[in-house]
């Protein structure tokens, strides 16, 4: 009984996070406009960058134009999936519209809305923004915590090219 209790306590206390090399948890979410839904599973065969962001997060806003450029530089084999954790999708859409204006690029990636924060929970998001580089087989290859600048994107491109 003692052993049982000990294991139970350990099991309840330890909260196993997600780490590189783990299978990326699948998700099904609707797009910001609520018209379509996407699953991570359907992107198998492509290298995927899942980015968790919000319109109230300064770092997320800073890196978003970089993602526009990044996705534009890859026509095949690499897809960015941005998951907004905003309470309302309109705030996210408003911000993306402003980035579209600034960069002159129409949003080139999949934009999903997760008001329930289910993806952030299943990916054990430690900070905002967080990005997860996932290989063709759905395995997490890199977890990036914090915002990316132009030099980080350069390094990321090297990783993406390796995985492609």
């Amino acid at each position: 009984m003692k052993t049982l209790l000990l294991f139970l306590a350990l099991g309840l206390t330890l909260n196993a996070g997600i780490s590189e090399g783990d299978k990326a948890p699948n998700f099904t979410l609707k797009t910001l406009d609520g018209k379509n839904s996407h699953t991570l599973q359907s992107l198998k065969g492509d290298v995927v960058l899942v980015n968790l962001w919000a319109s109230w997060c300064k770092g997320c806003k800073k890196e978003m134009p970089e993602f526009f450029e990044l996705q534009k530089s890859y026509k095949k084999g690499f897809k960015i999936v941005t998951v907004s954790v905003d309470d309302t999708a309109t705030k996210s859409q408003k911000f993306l519209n402003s980035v579209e204006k600034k960069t002159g690029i129409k949003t080139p990636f999949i934009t999903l809305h997760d008001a329930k924060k289910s993806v952030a929970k299943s990916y054990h998001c430690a900070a905002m923004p967080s990005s997860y580089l996932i290989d063709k087989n759905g395995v997490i290859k890199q977890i990036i915590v914090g915002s990316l600048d132009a030099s980080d994107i350069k390094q990321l491109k090297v990783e993406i090219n390796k995985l492609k």
Partner: protein
Amino acid sequence: MKITLFMQLVLLALILLFNGCSEKLVRVMPYEKEHFADPKMSLSPLAERAEHEGHIFLIREASAGGDSAYQGGCGCR
């Protein structure tokens, strides 16, 4: 000391109870900080006004300095 079944059950209940206080449940997670990030939640939402008020405060209190790492707050600067 002999641990009775009742004590074991109490212990189990306590473990379950205290796990309810685990970090994941109590801490506001980074993705849940939308309302905290609102500008109106800032201690001084109007930065310019805060600076002005600070200036007035210093004059009123007849003291200056002490609000940075290299001033002693002696009023001599």
